[in-house]
């Protein structure tokens, strides 16, 4: 007798908040993309995504609408990456951690030119405190509106604008001077 084998399902399903496994499968790649853009590294992205979902799990059960899932996960991803960036900055200040390294970001889908731009960018971003860096990255790498940047960072719109402007000034300086 033959064990019945079912093929992979061709029809994706929008998961409900209570469908934790479904939410993970549907949104893990999105969380990974957000985290990679904020952290500037994809070498440990498996761990980062799992950390985000471990934190997100309890809050997920409290959501009522499927539409709220993505925003919730994005806010948790921002909190987790903020914490990681702060820890890294403290470690570097104490001489315990390394500066950002190109080997941390393989970006296999990027062209050579794009990879070079991103490497230069993340070297610059390394010098910024986590709140400034994340606000700018959410705005220009993740493409979020200013209001959403403020909401995700848990700050006022004015503060979000100030943080973004601080990073923008340094990037403009770097671009102007090659």
């Amino acid at each position, binding site marked *: *007798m*033959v*064990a*019945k*084998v*079912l*093929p*992979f*399902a*061709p*029809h*994706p*399903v929008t*998961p*409900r908040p*209570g*469908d*934790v*496994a*479904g939410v*993970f*499968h549907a949104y*893990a*790649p999105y969380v*990974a*993309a957000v985290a*990679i*853009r904020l952290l500037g590294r*994809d070498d440990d*992205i*498996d761990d980062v*995504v*799992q*950390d985000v*979902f*471990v934190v997100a*799990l309890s809050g997920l*059960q409290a959501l009522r609408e499927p539409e709220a899932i993505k925003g919730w996960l994005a806010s948790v991803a921002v909190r987790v990456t903020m914490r990681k960036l702060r820890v890294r900055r403290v470690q570097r200040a104490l001489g315990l951690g390394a500066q950002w390294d190109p080997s941390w*970001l393989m*970006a296999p*889908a*990027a*062209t050579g030119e*794009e*990879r070079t*731009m*991103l490497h230069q*960018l993340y070297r610059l971003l390394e010098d910024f405190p986590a709140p400034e860096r994340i606000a700018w990255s959410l705005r*220009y*790498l*993740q*493409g979020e509106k200013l209001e959403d940047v403020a909401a995700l960072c848990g700050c006022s719109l004015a503060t979000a604008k100030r943080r973004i402007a601080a990073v*923008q000034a340094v*990037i*403009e300086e770097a*671009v102007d001077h090659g």
Partner: protein
Amino acid sequence: MAETNARLGKAAQALGTDWSAPKLDALYLGTRRRARRRQQLRGAAVAAVLLAAGGLVAVRLRPAGEGGAEVAMTRVEVASDGDVAVLHGGEQVRTLAVSGEETRISLLLGQAHFDVKPQRGRVVHVEAGRVVIDVVGTAFVVERRPGEVRVEMEVGTVRVHDRSGTRVLKAGEVGLFEDAPEEAALAPAPAAEEARAPLAAAPEPAPEVAPVAAPPKVLRPASKRAPRAETAPAWRELAQAGAFDEAWAALKTSAPPRDEPEDLLRAADVARLSGHPREALAPLQRVVAGFAADSRAPLAAFTLGRLWLEELGSPRQAAEAFARAQALAPGGPLQADALAREVESLSRAGDGAAAKARAADYLAKYPRGARAGDVKRWGALP
């Protein structure tokens, strides 16, 4: 500066992952393990604080489910339109698909109570490992245990498929079914009406599955080399425990799989489920080419088709593999699914004429088949 920001934003769009479904499965299980460890650490930290406070507090830690507080069972409801609601324990259940013809749900671990409303022509499939339960309207409990699945019927009737056959369970009955992920044994003569067919002579020659150039050494059958001694931890035990990432790491430093279908299929599972689909090709191709008469060869060919189509983006090779799966077991239980997937593969390969012809074959053989709607669409039939 706006242009620079735009270019940076565009470059950032290339940052992401290309995780396959098996990779997501493995990551999800890793997330659950991590969450459990964190809970255990919190519990230990609380206990340590209590002791440090100097109080004589006796804390008896009991595993969940043994006396003390009841652990609520996962509860799943399937509405008559196939919509799935997980009322409790959502992390154990995953909804794979909902379409006009069917709903597919996977029980990842533990046990769950399913309440399936009458489906009016639809079918609900509940997967528990390699055991599949076909439901049209009933209530039952499914429990996954190491190496087996327990199904307890409350109301109605279900049909359960496992490696030893198909069995019908009725209200009040309890069935235990083999679930052996490392063994994908097939046997001839299915019981399902749809799959019954007279015994065939030697199967018609079918197109060979396209070989892959230079498969990695780690998964090439050790038929011509002296086998190296196995060292712990053995990859087979890790695979049986569901630790596929660890099994893959162990497999790379172990002797190659034995040149026999069971071990080859097990190695292919390890490669697939640890996110290395290309490395699963060689052992599967070996089973199909070297053990064509083995009852597991059709399943190996079918799995090859899935890899080519879903993981490796080669629908033409997938079509050949699904055709081979049918040829290896004419009238077998994989026949209908393999033919449907062949139609899909041909459609995705851009071979509309062939897709249409094979779609017509499917509809002639299985006019009320579970994939009839999809097949019509892929074959561009009215």
